């Protein structure tokens, strides 16, 4: 391993020179971990996450991480992450689908325990029936636990979101975990171009005293309220403490927005802002949406794209502004419930213009042609369907 020197976080994220590599999404996530000065990684293997944690294990073997182990299962892994981070170190883990849900009791308590960490979520079908393909319904489960939830479209996003994730997560006025989600296989096992910072530069180490809550001090929250649960005192105390604490968690979540602007160029990306009709999508569906915009342009149709990078905090103000004049809003998704369409409908006032779909589930491909069908519908174009299926 090359000797790594610590550089300023802002320099590394915003100014450091970058080199273009053709790598998989799993490699991109591991390359970000390599540059993030991570102390410990703990995980339990599951397809398609295993590729990422295998590569992170290699990083430990090469000396980039101080410790790495395979936990007994996900509940153990996620609990151990909480312990390690409360102990003052920087930690990384990743999981997929059923693994996420197995670890979820521990994960959902991270924000309340003020655990700054990065969790890779490489999506896969949540059973049953069993499939290992990239359905992203598991992101819906993450939305209401207080975490920051970023959704990466491609290998470049995976690298950028993961590296910036550590920095955002540890900001004193944030101090909650960041989930970096992306579709399994479509991104984790496929190669794309990634512009990466130099291998010999890394983030400064975590400073556990630069925190709104001190590390492992059993007399002060949040450790005190874990050890000495308010519910043991009185119901009145417990709901009061829980209420103010959770308000602070969600306020922290909203405060992360300014750092999402600073390090990720904002929570949304808009292609063709003057469009008549918008596709709003996140993750791989945004990649398919990008192609649909291109197809539409070739046919002279004024279609734009809003790619949502940050699902939590949700960019309500920004989305309302872009969609103000839109005639229709198409929300393609890789899951059956349409969690993004629900978010959009809850965000804009004239939400009868939101078309939930097209949706594919079970992890199948989302053909651009399905998005085009919705586009033809809203423009009132009747196409004779010549494709034989």
């Amino acid at each position, binding site marked *: 391993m090359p000797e790594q020197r610590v550089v300023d976080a802002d320099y590394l994220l915003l100014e450091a020179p970058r080199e273009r590599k053709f790598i998989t999404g799993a490699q991109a996530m591991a390359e970000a971990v390599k540059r993030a000065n991570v102390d410990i990684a703990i995980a339990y293997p599951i397809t398609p996450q295993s590729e990422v944690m295998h590569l992170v294990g290699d990083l430990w073997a090469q000396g980039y991480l101080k410790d790495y182990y395979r936990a007994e299962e996900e509940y153990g892994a996620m609990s151990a992450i909480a312990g390690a981070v409360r102990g003052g170190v920087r930690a990384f883990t990743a999981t997929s689908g059923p693994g996420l849900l197995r670890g979820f009791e521990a994960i959902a308590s991270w924000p309340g325990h003020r655990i700054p960490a990065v969790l890779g979520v490489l999506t896969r079908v949540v059973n049953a029936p069993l499939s290992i393909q990239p359905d992203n319904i598991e992101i819906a489960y993450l939305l209401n636990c207080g975490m920051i939830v970023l959704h990466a479209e*491609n290998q470049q996003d995976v690298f950028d979101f993961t590296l910036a994730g550590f920095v955002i997560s540890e900001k004193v006025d944030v101090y909650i975990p960041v989930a970096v989600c992306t*579709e399994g*296989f*479509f991104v984790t096992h*496929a190669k794309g171009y990634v512009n990466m910072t130099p291998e010999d530069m890394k983030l400064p180490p975590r400073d556990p005293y630069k925190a709104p809550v001190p590390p492992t001090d059993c007399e002060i929250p949040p450790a005190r309220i874990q050890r000495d649960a308010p519910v043991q005192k009185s119901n009145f105390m417990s709901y009061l403490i829980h209420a103010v604490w959770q308000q602070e968690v969600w306020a922290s979540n909203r405060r992360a927005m300014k750092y999402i602007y600073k390090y990720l160029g904002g929570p949304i990306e808009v292609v063709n802002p003057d469009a008549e009709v918008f596709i709003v999508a996140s993750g*791989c569906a945004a990649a398919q949406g990008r192609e649909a915009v291109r197809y539409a342009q070739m046919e002279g149709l004024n279609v734009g794209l809003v790619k949502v990078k940050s699902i939590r905090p949700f960019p309500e103000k920004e989305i309302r502004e872009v969609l103000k004049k839109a005639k229709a809003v198409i929300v393609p998704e890789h899951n059956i419930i349409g969690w993004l369409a629900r978010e959009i409908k809850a965000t804009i006032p004239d939400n009868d213009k939101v078309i939930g779909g097209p949706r594919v589930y079970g992890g199948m*491909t989302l*053909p651009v042609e399905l998005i085009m069908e919705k586009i033809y519908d809203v423009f009132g174009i009747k196409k004779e369907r010549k494709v*034989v*299926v």
Partner: protein
Amino acid sequence: MKRYNIRIAGVGGQGVVTSAHILGNAMSAAGKYATLVPFFGSEKRMAPVEAYVRVSDQPIYEVGEVVYPNVIMIYHPQVITHGKSYTMPFYSGLKEGGMVIINTDADIIPPEDWQVLRELNTRVYMFPATKLALEVAGTELATNMAMVGLFFGITRLVGFEHIEQAVRERFLGNTFVASGGTTALDSAIEKKFKKKMELLEKNMQVIREAFKIAEERGWVEEEAYTP
């Protein structure tokens, strides 16, 4: 240049995925773009195999399998005659004005399928790739090279030198140094290298012949490669 969304259907052992890599790498060598998706199944010899390649001179964002191709390449006649394919019928999802290249020495398309292909205004190229591979390279393992050769022979999306570069990368890798310290090169490596060079040359001959066939039969299309 227009986008080619290619579905390759064949059977295990024919080098379907290998040739998808060569297609993509040749595009990359020519400074263009390609993405490649193998079907994540449990492949074995003579079982159906599919691979998907998208090629363009513009960046490609799309992910996943090609459900609506405008190019279909059939590497084995049994894909049609025995239905050995994940996507049935073989033309499933084919777009209007597309292209189908089939490895066969006889017309194996049933009349009702011909009717569909005509309605879709499809260009159908039937071509004995395995026969050509046997004649030129002495092995049917070069069938995939004949198919790649014919595709590029028809479309002329890249120059011959780019295909050669892609095939060379595939068979010799980037690490094989031919001239590195000749005295140290022991005979085993030399033998292995010699064998690889022969293999490479035979494959290139097959591709050259396929190019010639496309030209002789007047199949060359508009998007000629200009360096």
